[in-house]
């Protein structure tokens, strides 16, 4: 972890290079769309990674925040004429505040309560989106007004690839700054020993609350981008299965590794696309891959590989 923070420019550079190079060789709109989906998922996974990898807390309802962000850019412009970017910001602020309000009482308790509370929250969000059909369109979803920038409507997957790539880099940059700030140092202290951190006068609950709020904001922004990229949104985005998928991305890529979030997202988005040629064996193979990766790269893809490479190097 120390190496990671020492190499923050290297990490950011590697991510930028990866996004740039891949963007140059992608052959068609379909590939750009898959690429954009990877990047969008990576934004949410990145936020969740801060929570999971540094604050040691699991959220089983992060897709709930994704849903809030997605429907913010769908509902606010449609019904109240709010500009899309303002709606995106509104969704993010709302998610952050909701996370703070929920996190405050719950993170004071020792244990796994955030997992349960977020599980409930995620289900609640999905339920409201499904049942308040008069405004959300119900289970069939609703169209999302396209984003307009400088007078043009953004709809080409290529453009979205570069936009989401840019947002991911900014998100990574902020995450690194957070980890390098006093909050980050406190986080690392409590990662090593919560008791020691408490003894050193760190308000553990407050720190965890901030990280939870940041992760919720990331998820919300990711949801907004997904909605704008798709142009149509359904309550599926907020489902329990998507929450689980986000956790899986973080763990596959490597807890505590920001680059890992991108790799984890890439694996879980691209793999199902590649497995379609196996038709009915798809789920069987996807599950097997997840098990094998976790058995052989059990610290996550990026941290395990990094360890192997440095060992070989020395």
């Amino acid at each position: 972890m120390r190496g990671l923070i020492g190499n923050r420019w290297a990490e950011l550079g590697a991510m930028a290079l990866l996004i740039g190079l891949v963007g140059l060789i992608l052959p068609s709109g379909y590939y750009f769309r898959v690429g954009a989906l990877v990047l969008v998922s990576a934004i949410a996974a990145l936020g969740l990674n801060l929570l999971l990898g540094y604050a040691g807390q699991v959220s089983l309802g992060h897709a709930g925040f994704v849903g809030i962000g997605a429907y913010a850019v769908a509902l606010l412009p449609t019904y109240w004429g709010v500009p899309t970017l303002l709606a995106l910001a509104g969704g993010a602020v709302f998610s952050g505040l909701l996370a703070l309000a929920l996190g405050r009482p719950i993170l004071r308790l020792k244990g796994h309560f955030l997992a349960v509370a977020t599980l409930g929250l995620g289900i609640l969000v999905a339920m409201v989106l499904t049942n308040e059909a008069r405004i959300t369109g119900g289970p069939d979803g609703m169209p999302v007004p396209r984003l307009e920038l400088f007078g043009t409507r953004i709809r080409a997957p290529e453009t979205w690839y570069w936009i989401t790539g840019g947002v991911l880099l900014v998100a990574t940059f902020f995450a690194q700054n957070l980890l390098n700030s006093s909050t980050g140092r406190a986080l690392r202290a409590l990662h090593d020993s919560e008791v020691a951190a408490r003894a050193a006068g760190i308000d553990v609950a407050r720190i965890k609350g901030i990280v939870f709020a940041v992760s919720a904001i990331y998820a919300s922004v990711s949801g907004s981008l997904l909605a704008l990229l798709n142009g149509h949104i359904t309550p599926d985005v907020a489902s329990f299965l998507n929450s689980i998928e986000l956790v899986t991305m973080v763990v596959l890529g490597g807890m505590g590794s920001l680059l890992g979030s991108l790799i984890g997202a890439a694996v879980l988005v691209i793999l199902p696309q590649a497995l379609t040629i196996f038709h009915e064996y798809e789920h069987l193979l996807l599950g097997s891959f997840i098990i094998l990766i976790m058995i052989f790269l059990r610290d996550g893809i990026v941290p395990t590989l990094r360890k192997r490479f440095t060992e070989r190097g020395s």
Partner: protein
Amino acid sequence: MLAQFLQFTMSGLTVGAVYAVVGLGFTIIYNASGVLNFAQGEFVMIGGMVTVFAVAAGVPLPLAILLAIAVAAIVGIGLHRLAIEPARDASPVVLIIITIGGALVLRGIAQLVFDKQLHKLPGFSGDTPVNFLGASILPQALWVLGGTAIMVALVSLFFAKTMIGKAVLATAANRLAAQLVGVNTSVILAISFALSAAIGAIAGILVTPITFTHYEVGTMLALKGFAALVLGGLGNPMGAILGGLLLGLCEQLSAGYISSTYKDAFAFIVMIGVLLVRPSGLLGSKLAERV
């Protein structure tokens, strides 16, 4: 009034019994190995599906039931040997992800071996409802509740009275110490997985005449079973049972008295409320630092 209340309550208990058994299955594996097994719902699916297909192939029901329990137990051992054991010293979250992968694999296999249709079994004692103080109750609901009660009793006896059960408890308390006194912990863990799978399968068989079964039925059950587990107190088998029944009651009473659209929401609100008052769950003693 009373008839209505009884009707809602019976409904809640029947629904909750499945959550309870899934929660109990979670607990058995968690206590022995520290793993939260999110493939627990798939055992319920296997129990139902194997029985349905065996009966359809002409196997008599009692034999089909035994076969289904055996298949589930073997799958449970297989899951442990092939997926959990090789990653034994990985972190708890990694192990959870492995079980999620395991659930995907089991669903994938079920989709190939069986089919994607809904299936049912006939009620063990027919489908004619019995009248109890104005509430009408399916005889199968009594099978579910009775079966759950018997299973809970047997599992308690197993842990309290048998050598193997005590060895499981010893392994759970301290793996190294158990090894030192000659317990083969690997075998013990396999037994825990088999036991957990078997009771999941039994629950699946008991409820299939009421709820039907389907290759994807496990996902929602894992979610509800996990909630039951946390509500009752992680690590306490009786807590999981109590939590499951309460969750079922909350859902069905909300559906009856408040709003059927938001009944799941009320169940979760009650759950979070209970946890704020009693952080370790209704009967919980152990605290888990991370899930």
